[in-house]
């Protein structure tokens, strides 16, 4: 394999594959209602990789599950907003209608390949069942396609491997199989929920390269859910930073990494070890995210923010557009806060 040769530029078109507008998702629990996602907006273009980053519990996975139609209802409720996939509102579809899209047009890769595969079914069956349900093709044809997919994700001896069971594969191999399953119906959108978190670092790099390779071959759009900024730096085109159920900053990879504006984004970047800045110590963000049982009225980051102002406590900031792609929800962008704005910049 020529890992180096494939650094050609990938094509991102202007066609919007997915539009998420003002999405609100809540969970009704015994303790009350948890507002896990509180108004998320973003668009996804064809052939692009959007990374959604943020710490645990910020609503990344809930957002992706909502797009995939996997929010268990009850206790979950999509309270507001819509998810337009090529113009079709996924939140309005019936369960049957949703099933025609799940796995065919949108598919998902899960975090832990050790548990994502059914231990009692052969790899071949798990690969082909989606295909055979949706595309109505014969057994032999499905098998041929499955072998093709296993080759694509780099599994040797696919013919023999089809008959084997998940426990006969290593973790990295299993994640390749999960990817093959997700891609077998040629989806236009792939949601990868922490696809490398459960893998060894060496395997992580291989899987990420596989993503890039597939994206170039298939012009697929990817939503990458992760808290690993290293992964983001490697394969994302755009980055959305989520905090307490909201996207607080969104922009191109360069903009987020080199000119972050939101104090939370800055904090996130400062808490990652960097090889080029030897003397600097890691700066963790003090405190914990707010309790989403009763989310704060103002900016949810206020309590942990070094630049918090009076207004932050009371009113959530509107989005300030810094460039065509770069937007940030922060009061520091307001003209009246200019003094503080440039006092600390990472990079």
């Amino acid at each position, binding site marked *: 394999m020529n890992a180096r040769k494939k650094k050609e530029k990938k094509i991102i078109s202007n066609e919007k594959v997915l539009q998420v507008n003002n999405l609100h998702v809540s969970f009704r629990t015994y303790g009350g209602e948890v507002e896990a996602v509180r108004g998320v907006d973003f668009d996804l273009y064809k052939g692009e990789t959007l990374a959604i980053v943020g710490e645990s519990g910020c609503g990344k996975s809930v957002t992706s599950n909502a797009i995939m139609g996997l929010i268990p209802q009850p206790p979950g409720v999509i309270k507001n907003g819509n998810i337009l996939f090529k113009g079709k509102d996924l939140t309005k579809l019936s369960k049957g209608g*949703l*099933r025609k899209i799940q796995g065919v047009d949108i598919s998902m890769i899960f975090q832990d390949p050790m548990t994502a595969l059914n231990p009692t079914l052969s790899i071949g069956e798990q690969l082909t069942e989606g295909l055979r*349900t949706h595309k109505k093709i014969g057994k032999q044809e499905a098998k041929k396609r499955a072998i093709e997919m296993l080759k694509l994700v780099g599994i040797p001896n696919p013919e023999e491997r089809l008959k084997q069971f998940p426990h006969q594969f290593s973790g990295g191999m299993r994640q390749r199989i999960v990817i093959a399953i997700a891609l077998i119906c040629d989806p236009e959108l792939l949601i990868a929920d922490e696809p490398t978190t459960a893998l060894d670092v060496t395997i992580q790099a291989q899987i990420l390269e596989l993503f890039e390779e597939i994206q170039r071959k298939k012009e697929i759009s990817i939503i990458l859910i992760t808290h690993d900024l290293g992964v983001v730096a490697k394969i994302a085109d755009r980055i959305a930073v989520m905090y307490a159920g909201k996207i607080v900053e969104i922009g191109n990879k360069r903009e987020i990494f080199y000119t972050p504006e939101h104090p939370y984004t800055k904090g996130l970047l400062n808490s990652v070890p960097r090889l080029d800045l030897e003397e600097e110590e890691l700066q963790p963000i003090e405190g914990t995210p707010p309790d989403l049982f009763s989310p704060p009225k103002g900016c949810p980051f206020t309590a942990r923010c070094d630049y918090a102002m009076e207004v932050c406590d009371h009113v959530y900031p509107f989005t300030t557009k810094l460039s065509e792609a770069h937007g940030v929800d922060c009061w520091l962008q307001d003209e009246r806060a200019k003094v503080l704005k440039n006092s600390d910049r990472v990079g």
Partner: protein
Amino acid sequence: MAKYIIKRFFMMIATILIIATLTFALMHSIPGSPFDEERTSNPTIQANLEKFYKLDEPMHIQYLYYLKSIVTFDFGPSIKKPNESVNELLARGFPISFELGMVTILVALLSGVTLGTFAALRHNGIIDYLAMTFAVVGISVPNFVLATLLIQQIAVNLEWLPPATWSSPLHMILPTLALATGPTAIIARLTRSSMLEVLTQDYIKMARAKGLSPVRIVVRHALRNALMPVVTIMGTMLAGILTGTFVIERIFAIPGMGKYFVESINNRDYPVIMGSTVFYSAFLVFMLFLVDIVYGFLDPRIKLHRKEGDA
């Protein structure tokens, strides 16, 4: 596989031998003899009888004769019913007991798994509560109580079904119901709890993300994994049901093995006791073996034998 079966076969023989020896020792340690109740206290007749049944021999010689009878599977005539051999008794009684046992286990398995699955799918819903209430009642009420209740209400008061004997499928309903309720309840509870666990697994979420139909997800992806604990208890449950038939057979006047077995113990009818014990234990050991094989089919991770080259 063949290697495993051969190994299991020898283990089965050893198990049966141990059971047979224990039965022999226990039987002969109980005071009394088969001829206690006989009024013919003529010592010559008694001696002749004992000689005929080889009861006058020393214990170890009797044991050897006994082992021989196991190997040849010929337990000789019954002491109390001298015109019938033990083999004939078994041939007459066992098929009926077997039928009752198998119908029961089939009913228990089908209804228990169905009930447990629906209860899990409607977790904390009305079906769940009803099923679990039934399960608690089913486990708590002993089958002989249930049997008498069923006879009283359904056979005597309502006259819907015949109260006793084993002559048509209609006759089978009440005894099966009485015998199957407990196991059904246990299987339902077990299926429910393991189903609830399986349904939260990632591979079920993944199956949903594939856009598969709910039926396929439950049957193909969830049930197979959820059934593992059920298969595990099947072995012991089978033993419970087969011995449970003895009591139920008596209540419903079913001419199965139970009647002969209980009578033979009261009468110290050694050949019948030995014959039926050995036969039953052999049967059960074989069933347990089948359960292990089913295990291997359900879950590919369970290897019945170690292949060369496997870690």
